[in-house]
């Protein structure tokens, strides 16, 4: 019984109600605590994961809607090309402060970069405004995304 879900390439069987949000399956059932709880209403983005590559708020994603989709979390985003660049840019730009929201920020930014190699300020606003940072790292996040994009473009060039 329960649900088979594919997280970071591994299939897990979890025995929870179908309406259980993915966030709690990750954190409390599977013990993957990198994905964070912030609001429970898709208002803050701390719980962002990728579902088939799309940035999604796991706190409002019922487990029974996932099916065979591939879930990627912060624990594995470094294995993707965009994710690795974003993580490197985050370190190069010293983005983090308390760090609690940064898993979600990195997941949103990685999804942006994977779909848009050269994001403009307006693209960054669109992709990142769902992620709240109480430490106010927005200025550095913006610069770090541009740096990661520049790294991508250098390699292509």
């Amino acid at each position: 019984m329960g649900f088979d879900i594919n997280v970071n390439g591994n299939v897990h069987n979890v025995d929870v109600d179908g309406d259980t949000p993915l966030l709690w399956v990750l954190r409390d059932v599977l013990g993957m605590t990198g994905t964070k709880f912030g609001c429970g209403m898709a208002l803050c983005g701390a719980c962002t994961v990728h579902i088939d590559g799309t940035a999604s708020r796991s706190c409002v994603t019922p487990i029974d809607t996932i099916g065979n989709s591939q879930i990627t979390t912060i624990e594995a985003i470094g294995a993707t090309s965009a994710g690795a660049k974003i993580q490197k840019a985050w370190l190069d730009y010293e983005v983090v402060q308390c760090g609690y929201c940064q898993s979600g920020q990195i997941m949103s930014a990685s999804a942006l970069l994977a779909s848009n190699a050269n994001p403009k300020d307006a693209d960054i606003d669109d992709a990142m405004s769902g992620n709240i940072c109480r430490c106010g790292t927005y200025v550095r996040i913006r610069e770090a995304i541009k740096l990661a994009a520049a790294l991508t473009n250098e390699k292509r060039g």
Partner: protein
Amino acid sequence: MALDRISSRSTDTNLSRRSFLASSAGFGGGLVLSLSLPLHRIEAGQSESFAPNAFIRIGSEGQVVLTMPYVEMGQGTYTSIPMLIAEELEVSLMQVRLEHAPPNEKLYANPLLGVQATGNSNAIRGAWKPLREAGATARIMLIAAAANRWGVDPKSCRAEHGEIVHVSTGRRLTYGELATEAAKIAVRKDVILKSPEDFKLIGTRTKRLDAPEKVDGTALYGIDARPPNVKIATLAQSPVFGGRVKSVDDAAAKAVNGVRQIVRLDDTVAVVADHMGAAKKGLAALKIEWDDGPHSRLATEEISRQLEMATLGPGAVAQNKGDADKAMASATTKVEAIYQVPFLAHAAMEPMNCTVHFRQNECEIWIGSQAVARVQAMAANAAGLPLDRVIVHNHLLGGGFGRRLEADGAVRAVEIAKHVEGPVKVVWTREEDIQHDMYRPYWFDRLSAGLDDQGRPVAWKNRFAGSSVIARWLPPAFNNGLDPDSTEGAIDLVYDLPNFHVEYVRVEPPGIPTAFWRSVGPSHNVFVTESFIDELAAATKQDPVAYRRALLDKSPRAKAVLDLAADKAGWGKALPKGTGRGVSLQLAFGSYLAQVAEVEVSTSGAIRVRRVVCAVDCGTAINPDTVQAQIQSGIIFGATAALYGEITLKNGRVEQTNFDTYQMLRMNEAPTIEVHIVQSSEPPGGLGEAGTSAIVPAIANAIFAATGKRLRKMPVDASALKQPV
């Protein structure tokens, strides 16, 4: 990436060992908690480690473990404190591992507060001398051990990169090789600290030691604690402060798959479950009837009225210079104003949480706290156990902002855990977190000033009323109706104000708890004083920067940051219609800040903070990158409060619930921020909060410049700025 960079340390050998095993199993491959020996044994010299003080431990394998007396909540202490130690110890930051300090007021008290707590932007100010001395002491003892081994004069040896070198022969011994012998050397007190010109680390832009694990998701916050078989609980507390549970129908909640237990307390009902999803579902299924208690009709307006009335009577005199009444009587112009600031929630991104394993004779706690000894003491009280039977594991904090100086959450979690078999993690929903915060006090201020015929303020009077957080949190610091926090930013102004009189009236609001909030006293006072000085400039049609500048002959550091910020911001240059610049100047937490905010006000009244320029003189900047980051952070935090922040009560209930009703500034609204640091060799000032208090008046003053409307009440009321069509 440095997965094992930061770890936890507890107080008792057996418990430490047990919790290490438990924790490392439960954390599923995350950080490895250290198996550290208890401090008293290290001090007695029974271990192979060299531990000359409570902050440094060097093992025979050469690992350098630094115990952090100040917590990391984003402000960069877990980099700046190691920098202070490593500067004198002569080790690379790549060599050190960090531990959260256990509760121990004797060893880890903040010298500026007298208790073990991280707040009031004073970690660096408190650590500046003692932690460099800690590093220097260890260095001297390692040198002595090497000199003994070689039979040479210690003066012929020096420390570098974690080794002692005999200069003339080039012989070298690592700290690890010397640890056992160094431990036998008497602790030296007569250390001489480096001269600033010899600093290698201090003053350099240094990478954060906690960044790698915060970027790959392995960093552990209190909410990530997972002792084996932990259950998850969430809770509903009386929606009115002081209310009680009248009745609970928990049949539907108990029927939820995964719900294990319902715990009923006097004023709280908690649902214990296998996971938070089930706990929340159970909570929603509870039918609770509340007895609202004495505050069931309370509204914010009533509190505001109480404070207003209080400012009509006398208060405690916080500062008096000259004769303000006499000077006022002979002034050419008189300006009066009333200012108000609202209750504010902290809304740290990591919601309040605490994990407790309550056992027969002991209690083990996992938490992220700014005041871990306070947690231990209050939890012991709640548990009915002696202090040494309460083990506390501190963690990284997902935001502090003053909220985590309080131990109410730990107490609540202990009360719940007493009814639960095995460990339970109590997690506040965001709604509970906002509606059961302890809030930045509401303040009501009554000001007046008398100006001479040149417009200079010859008299300044200010009487303000609000809650004293200090009186509750640190009672010995509240004396004669005054405390150093409530008045900071209202007295000792940088300006030359010869006749100056400030009074504080302590009024504790009914039915709503208050607490420290990022930038504490100045969060209120700097908005008021820097708005009012702007009013005085406007009253005599003078330029706000020039007006301030003329009052700064006795404050050269203040004048320098004002000039720098004005220059970099292009003060005086033309701006588009509907846009204005506002300035603020502040001395708080030992640092000087000037900010210029550029704000655009649309015809609908919508505000956009476009650009902020900040000049800062914080004395010695330990890590200039952190200085810049903290100013950026403080500005976003303060701008959020100025534009959106307000907690209101209706029928005794907090009306705001989540980020939809308690809004945060987001990426698309964030201004560009420029930070200019004044080079200085003065002792370091605090910076974690300064940016927050300084931005609020800068925004209000910019709105005045853009629209001619003076906002004396925060947050900004956009409807008041709407222009008639």
